[in-house]
């Protein structure tokens, strides 16, 4: 017997300033069903979600939820994990989880209940985060976990997840999937968005494919494979995902010796040569912290950094940049881009000096540069002046990458470079990283996506609990060996 119909949208349309983003989306979602929603960057997935959540009002069309008109009654009964974190950075984890619906007693906050509830939710996700910590002090993966916990704390019939796994590794994703299955068994429906097509295929019952705001298909997951989904997303045949690797070669370009920073990075030493080196590890292993310490974004408590044999005295981020050491942050909106700034000014944010003469900006040159990146990465934007908050997540990511690249790096530390980037654009980016590495740049690829690390790197450093657990070369770069080093257990 078919289960109860939970959500039905009919002909949902939405356009921004005359540009259509959704052109009539008609979907159905049954109770206890997991529906995957995929599509290229800027296809309209997040916009559709925002329509369901009442954050955007559709221009036309209807949305029925639990038999009621959602556009009138509001999104009660729907919980969501937004694509961009919606956390108050000065509040604690527990305060964020219960934001706006704090449990109270006689008008006072019931702090102990908030704490214990938060702890229980986080435990369910198998993460060790103290509910009393401030959001500001969390890593991106931890913030993601808090967002998930927050959504799970709401009693809901429909859970919307907009790219929850982009910064999670396999282990963390697996826990999430287990919880999703539990919810499903309890009759909760889930709308799941991801660019990792394998996970879409394994967790979802049906897969809806959006292309340029049009729903091109909605079929059972078992009838599709990842290649087929990708083909429907982009509307053409996709080439090989990973280009040939560029093994590190030549003299060491960057030498890190005995580097430490607080409790996060402990006595790490390694060398980077021209080519691509991977850096793997679980969340909290200290990969981001290591990169930030190299770039003087974080205080180092011991150790040294050498570039081509010469010891560098890096006191501030500008020093690292001046030597051509560039870091792409994993925290896109937190530290990567200015959402209130136009696209072109974001691209030149750290390389502005090159477009200046005697301190005066040459706008023509600046715009030409931004335009070249828009072309190169196929960034979907209305204009060069569009503020970044109006771009889709994946396109914002491309701008963040362009911003770093524009500094002509000698050493490039990529932290989750393809976060939220769609499958087609991702293979373009990989090709691009490969060319960069082949031209003599030392690239360090930090990623929570093991497939990406294995596909791109011939040499992988693995961190565990702030220390370098080991280095894997060539045929040893396998999932098992990386996980063994990352966790310390077989």
């Amino acid at each position, binding site marked *: 017997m078919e289960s109860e119909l939970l959500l039905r949208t009919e002909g949902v349309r939405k356009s921004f300033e005359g540009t259509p983003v959704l052109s009539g989306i008609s979907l159905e979602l049954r109770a206890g069903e997991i529906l995957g929603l995929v599509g290229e960057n800027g296809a309209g997935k997040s916009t559709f979600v925002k329509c369901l959540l009442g954050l955007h009002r559709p221009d036309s069309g209807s949305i029925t939820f639990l038999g009621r008109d959602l556009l009138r009654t509001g999104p009660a009964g729907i919980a969501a994990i937004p694509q961009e974190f919606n956390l108050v950075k000065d509040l604690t984890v527990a305060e964020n989880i219960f934001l706006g619906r704090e449990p109270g007693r006689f008008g006072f906050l019931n702090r102990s209940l908030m704490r214990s509830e938060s702890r229980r939710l986080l435990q369910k996700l198998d993460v060790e985060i103290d509910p009393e910590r401030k959001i500001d002090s969390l890593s991106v993966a931890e913030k993601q976990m808090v967002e998930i916990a927050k959504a799970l704390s709401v009693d809901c019939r429909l859970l919307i997840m907009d790219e929850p796994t982009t910064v999670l590794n396999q282990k963390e994703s697996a826990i999430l999937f287990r919880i999703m299955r539990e919810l499903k068994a309890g009759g909760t429906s889930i709308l799941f968005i991801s660019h990792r097509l394998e996970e879409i295929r394994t967790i979802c019952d049906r897969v809806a494919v959006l292309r340029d705001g049009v729903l091109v298909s909605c079929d059972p997951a078992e009838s599709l494979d990842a290649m087929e989904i990708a083909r429907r997303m982009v509307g053409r045949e996709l080439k090989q995902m990973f280009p040939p690797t560029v093994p590190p070669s030549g003299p060491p370009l960057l030498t890190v010796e005995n580097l430490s920073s607080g409790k996060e990075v402990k006595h790490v030493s390694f060398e980077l040569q021209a080519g691509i080196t991977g850096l793997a590890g679980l969340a909290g292993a200290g990969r981001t912290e290591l990169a930030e310490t190299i770039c003087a*974004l974080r205080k180092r408590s011991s150790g040294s950094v050498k570039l081509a044999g010469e010891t560098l005295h890096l006191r*501030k*981020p*500008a020093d*690292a*940049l001046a030597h051509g050491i560039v*870091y792409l*942050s994993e925290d896109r909106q*937190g*530290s*990567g*881009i*200015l*959402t*209130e*700034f136009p696209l072109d*000014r974001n691209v030149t*944010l*750290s390389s*502005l*000096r090159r477009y*200046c003469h005697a*301190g*005066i*900006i040459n*706008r023509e040159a600046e715009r030409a540069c931004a*335009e070249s990146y*828009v072309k190169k990465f196929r960034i979907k934007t209305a*204009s*060069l*002046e569009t503020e970044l908050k109006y771009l889709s997540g994946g396109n914002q990511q491309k701008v963040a990458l362009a*911003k770093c690249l524009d500094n002509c790096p000698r050493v490039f530390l990529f932290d989750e470079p393809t976060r939220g980037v769609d499958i087609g654009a991702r293979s373009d980016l990989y090709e691009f990283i490969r060319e960069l590495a082949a031209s003599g740049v030392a690239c360090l690829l930090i990623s929570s996506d093991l497939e990406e690390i294995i596909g791109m790197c011939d040499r992988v450093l693995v961190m565990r609990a702030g220390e370098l657990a080991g280095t894997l070369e060539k045929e040893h770069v396998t999932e098992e060996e990386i996980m063994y080093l990352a966790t310390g257990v077989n």
Partner: protein
Amino acid sequence: MQPESTNGIRRLTTLLKSTGGPWAALVVLLLVCCISNEHFRSVQNLVNITRQVSYSGLIALGMTFVIAGGGIDLSVGSLLAFSGVISILGMNAVPGSETLAVAVAAVIAVALGAAGGAANGALVALGKVPPFIATLGTLVIFRSLALYFGNSGLVSSENEVYREIGGAVIGGIPLPVWILLILTVVLSLVLKRTRLGRHICAVGSNERVARYAAIRTGLVKFYTYLIAGTTAGISALLFGGRLNSVSSTSAGLSYELDAIAAVIIGGSSMNGGKASVWGTLAGILILGIVSNVLDMWGISVTLQGTVKGLVIIIAVMMQRKTLK
């Protein structure tokens, strides 16, 4: 990409959006006042208004930079009094040539203003003191120093050259107004067209992102206070020349509030990151016209604050509307 023509239109609309609102409001206000009151529309009165607003207007220009960088400077009014008092004392101490004395006073006023601004900047950038608190502290300090050196009274000079410069009118426009206009043009270019200006807005928009982009955020913030202090020093010099004296008790009193109000009315974001120097000029003119008109209607000075406050609130509410 957009074809050139629509690109031009887009640029014009963004320009209008960022500065047009306050200027449109100014024009409407001016028209209404001119039509409704014949005394108001006399050239002499209009010139007077511009002179009256020029002193706090100069400070407002500097304040635009501080607010663009995500800060606030409450000390500028006191700093005006302090550097005004000391510069006149310095002028009186120079024997012989009156012109030389004025030159000395000019150097003292601007240098002290800059030094005061630098002190604020150092507190905020190096000392990591929240701007509101740092400049609240220096507000009290500068005023107290002004009172101390000015014996809690009027500090005046007999320098005729100073009086002449302070009251100079060139082409029908008073000197302070000229300087206000010139600085508006220059500072607007600094904010919109230079690397420093871009960095100021970046720091104000999101300091963490700016830091990750290898922008020297502390230095950038320091510069904003330096600029604000310097404009306060320039303002002090012109202010003293008007009457050849500076009152250590009342000079520059609550100028910081007028300046902040002008910046807000001018459409800059209080959260930093978005600012317009030309907008600030419109803001300060709006405030000047409002108090002038209230004067003409015979509304007591004490009640004028209520109206000013309402103007500020309405201006901000209107901006919120257009943003949505």
